[in-house]
């Protein structure tokens, strides 16, 4: 206790660092280095995060007042969650949330199945494989906006306008996911698959039973990418959905901004509420996602 009154000197700091180092099983130099990395990363991450800080700050401030002050205030003042609550009640937020969830779930499940089937096929060597691969890579490059009208006409023909399925259908396959799964499947040793087949497993079981179990990280990647893509989609739902009750969140956000012309805080609050589910999903799947990209990206 008496030590508190003494000034901290370098030796003490050195002692502390040594203790930490020993605890971590390394020498002091390494610990200092790690500390350095931490600091650098912290600074960069904070800088990177700044726009989000701005977004949250504006959304959480009440009363909103004028955002266009001569010099912006960087600090947090009068924090309130009022804006979020107001958004929740002013518009049928749960309904839009429901629509987004249904559409995204359809896309995620659909793409898991479709991409897996396609990836499985691509692990085999077959006639025309090169053509198909080239076709897929090229198809990635088709500008999205130009597909809107014909895709709309097709959806109309199928009678899927204004339905969750109609919005989700184009998202039920995506090429990057297929490639990642393919790479992951490629990494599974053939011996395991042969063993399963010899045991009498059908091809379907080989795929969904064996390979899926071994490629969990790649599946997680697929899920997160499909989720992001579908959750944030704007233009496609716009043309397919004319019934307000069927709108997904981004559409609701757009029409929302017209209702509260100029009230930025509310708009920002809504934007954050659209963002939060994606973040949650990502955090949950993070571990799997990272591991999958490991396997997926190396074998190109």
């Amino acid at each position, binding site marked *: 206790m008496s030590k508190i009154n003494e000034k901290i000197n370098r030796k003490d700091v050195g002692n502390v660092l040594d203790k930490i180092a020993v605890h971590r099983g390394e020498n002091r130099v390494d610990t200092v280095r790690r500390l350095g990395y931490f600091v650098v990363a912290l600074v960069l991450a904070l800088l990177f995060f700044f726009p989000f800080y701005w977004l949250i700050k504006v959304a959480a401030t009440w009363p909103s007042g*004028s*955002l*266009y002050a*001569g010099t912006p205030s960087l600090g947090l003042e009068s924090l309130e969650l009022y804006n979020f609550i107001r958004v929740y009640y002013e518009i049928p937020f749960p309904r839009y949330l429901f629509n987004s969830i249904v559409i995204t779930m359809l896309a995620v499940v659909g793409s898991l199945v479709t991409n897996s089937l396609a990836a499985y096929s691509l692990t085999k060597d077959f006639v025309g494989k090169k053509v198909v691969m080239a076709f897929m890579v090229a198809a990635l490059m088709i500008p999205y906006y130009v597909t809107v009208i014909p895709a709309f006409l097709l959806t109309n023909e199928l009678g899927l306008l204004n339905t969750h399925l109609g919005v989700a259908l184009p998202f039920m396959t995506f090429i990057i996911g297929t490639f990642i799964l393919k790479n992951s499947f490629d990494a599974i040793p053939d011996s395991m698959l042969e063993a399963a087949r010899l045991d009498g497993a059908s091809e379907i079981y080989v795929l969904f039973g064996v390979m899926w179990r071994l490629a969990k990280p790649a599946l997680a990647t697929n899920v997160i990418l499909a989720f992001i893509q579908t959750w944030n989609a704007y233009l496609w739902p716009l043309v397919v959905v004319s019934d307000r009750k069927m709108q997904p969140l981004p559409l609701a956000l757009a*029409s*929302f901004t017209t209702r509260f012309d*100029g009230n930025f805080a509310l708009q920002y609050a809504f934007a954050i509420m659209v963002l939060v589910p994606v973040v949650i999903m990502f955090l949950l799947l993070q571990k799997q996602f990272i591991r999958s990209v490991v396997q997926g990206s190396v074998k190109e």
Partner: protein
Amino acid sequence: MDDELKNQLTTRRSQLKALGGGIAAGLAGCLGDGDGSGDGDGDGDGDGDGSTDTDSDGGGGEVEEPIEALTWNLGFLEESINGWISDFEDKTGYEGAWVDQPAEDFPTYFQTQVQSGDPPETIDSQGAIYVQYARDDVLHPLDDMVSDQLMSRFNDSLIERDKVDGSIWRLPFYFVSTGTVYRKQWFEEAGIADDMPTSTPEYFSAAETIVNETDAEWGLTTVRYDYALWPFFWDQGVNILNEDNTEAVFNTDTTVEILTRLRELTDDGIIPELTWTQRKQPQAQEFGTGNTGMYHMWLSSVRLVQESGDWVNGDSMGFMPAPGKKPAYNGHGWSITENQTQATKEATLELIKVILNTKWQEDFLRNTTVLVGNTNAMENLANSDKFRNENPLLAGVYDTWFESAEGAVAQPRISQTAEIWDTINSQFSAAAVGETDPEQAVTNAEQRVNNILE
């Protein structure tokens, strides 16, 4: 608007001024309490008959329900619009429906709906986009369907403005013109409150005086979309196209002069740069902080401005017409789409009649910051002292319109309107921020506009 009415209104305005306008900050657009300022009766409109009125000989076909109306950026009006639909349903027994789209997405959405073969039966469109639709036979000409009684609801000039090749393609719904709002404090401090600017050069020098003599940061800012920049040029006698809308005529020395002036003012810090790079909200926000002298805008943005600044109220903010009282004009109207049976079209017309009757137009006036086509509604509210007292900002909007109604210029009623303005706007903005030389910009713009018109 006939002269007598105009005089009446001008007198009222000076009366209000004399009262010192000591009215608490009115929430513009807030609901008035409706007594005495409206019939509240759906049929007080010289339309008389309560059912389909065209002389159809019964061979009109089936009515395809529901009758769907597509609105432009009216999501906030949900309650009222549901009222339209239910009144329509009560009146005719047909089912009605409503879709709204934000402005940027409206063309895309409508486009896909048309191609699907089942477009909304009626659409509320802004500006001149309906001309493109009319040219492509997407809309149905209304001349044969409208009765004189129906047309008597509207001011002739509104109808004439919207005609294309002499045909009526839409019925006036609401409209707005540009005008200038200003912070009275700056004008008083600069000592020019008695000498409000009326022409473009006067605007510019007032802006300079304000910045030089007071603490104001900026003298003038403006919006540019939908031809809103052009009043500064119209005042000096420069038109964009010739009479036939076949040739660009704006490449004159005056144009270059004005543009150079704009560029100088921006360089000198009289006009903020965001004027030339942003669309609407940043300008309103900037003016809302109170640091700007004048803001030339679409008068419908008055509520946006009010929300952007605590200081904004009927006393502290003034209204004045655009330079030379030649504001840009932007209107909305209801059109009927083709590709339906005659009976459906007539039913659709019924819906439009409900939307445009006095009751609902007054309701529209109360909920928005624009002017409407129904003359009754306008007279009822704009002339009502009570309404004006409660909504000084709205009163400002109306008065500014009445003052400049004659000079208001609408967008050319041709299909290439949007493309032409996009070209001119982009060139002129670049010159104003100093990216290109003004003379070069004007010449380039002229050349490209002529290309477009070919």
